[in-house]
């Protein structure tokens, strides 16, 4: 095995398997903290950053993506509030009472479908943000976190009094 190939493997790493593509530049990637700008790739090979402008755009996009995730959770809460407001104090009735506690607010199948869609979209977008952060690019991580911070600042002012996660001995949730 030649020396040059060995040294190359350190850089291109996992992309090696498919690094035989015809494009001129390959994605630079590192599984350690880095500040790559040119030739950095996020998430997919097609998201390949050639220029500084493209990188700036990507970073701004990541920032707003993180903000949007917080916004989505606000939409979830608002929709739940809307359901509560429109349930007029009714709780679930019929055979569903077997599977749900008696205090469950009345919710229709469509409402619950929308809730599930929003919940899983939240999960999906959070997962994708995690995958972007996994590029270990310092800028991406920084702006992802700042986006979450700003997003929480903008959209989460209605969560006073509710614990962030369900901890505590017998919080009735």
């Amino acid at each position, binding site marked *: 095995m030649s020396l040059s190939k060995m040294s190359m493997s350190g850089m291109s790493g996992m992309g090696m398997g498919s690094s035989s593509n015809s494009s001129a530049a390959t994605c630079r990637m590192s599984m*350690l903290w880095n500040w790559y700008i040119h030739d950095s790739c996020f998430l997919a090979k097609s998201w390949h950053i050639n220029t500084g402008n493209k990188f700036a755009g990507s970073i701004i996009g990541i920032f707003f993506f993180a903000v949007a995730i917080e916004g989505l959770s606000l939409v979830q809460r608002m929709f739940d509030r809307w359901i*509560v407001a429109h349930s007029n104090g009714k709780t679930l009735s019929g055979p569903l009472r077997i599977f749900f506690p008696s205090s469950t607010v009345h919710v229709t199948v469509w409402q619950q479908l929308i809730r599930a869609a929003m919940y899983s979209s939240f999960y999906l977008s959070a997962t994708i943000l995690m995958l972007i952060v996994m590029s270990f690019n310092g800028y991406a991580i920084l702006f992802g976190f700042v986006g979450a911070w700003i997003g929480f600042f903008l959209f989460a002012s209605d969560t006073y009094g509710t614990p962030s996660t369900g901890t505590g001995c017998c919080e009735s949730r």
Partner: protein
Amino acid sequence: MSFFSAAKQSLGNSLIKLGTSMAQNSQGPVDDSSLSQLENLLPPLQILTARAAMAAMNMSNDTSMSGMNMTNSTTPMSGMNMTNSTTSMSGMNMSNSTTSMSGMNMTNTTTTAKASSCKLSMYWNWYTIDACFITKHWHITSKHMFVGSIFGIIFMMMALELVRRGQREFDRWCVRRFSPASNSCCHSGAPVHSGPSMALRIFLHFLRSCFYLVQYIVAYIAMLLAMYYNGYVILFLFCGTFFGYFLFGADTISTKASSSVQTKTIVQVADEKHEHDSSQYSDTTPTTE
């Protein structure tokens, strides 16, 4: 993180392969059963296999100093690269200079002797055949296997939602059972004064932490699965969450929707009687926006 674990495992594997190949050079073939036994004990046995490799190298006549150095060096990569570079000093230096990145590579290159190898990518991909998830043993060799894995992923996410629901139900039961007459038991972190004894509370909290542990593990596995950047896997993780939440998540409205005061009201209203006067209820639903 899954990458590091994969790198660690491939390290162990390649060390073993190194050792066995050396042994084969010197002593002839080694039976596979012992190899598979070794593979089960991978991470803790790294040093041991390194020693075995060293011993094998001592026996073989064609490898000398370089091999020895490699087994002595504690960096994981060195062992792996040795299988690629046929034990020369230059190869050794290279292996030290490479970052841990090259781990995946090595799994690709070292397993080429087998019929098929794991296809791994750190970018978005749609691999089906020869994709591997989490361990090398979860190696997709056929379409049926892939479909089965996808169903497994969906059911895992649904089960995660079920366990979350279970925890909520357990908490509710806890509140109902152990805080009589008032639903304001534990808000703002205040302990239950007239509630269960200390030992019972510790036991209940132990049960809660068991629920939490299961959620934590499953969520972690889901994250590790997502980290293979496989489009299908991510899509069906999403679908599993969707179905799970649709089936089991309807009871979370009251919590997210409302402040704690409101939740309390809903619980009381529902507990006391069902056909409560709606006007009174609507009085107690403040708009907190």
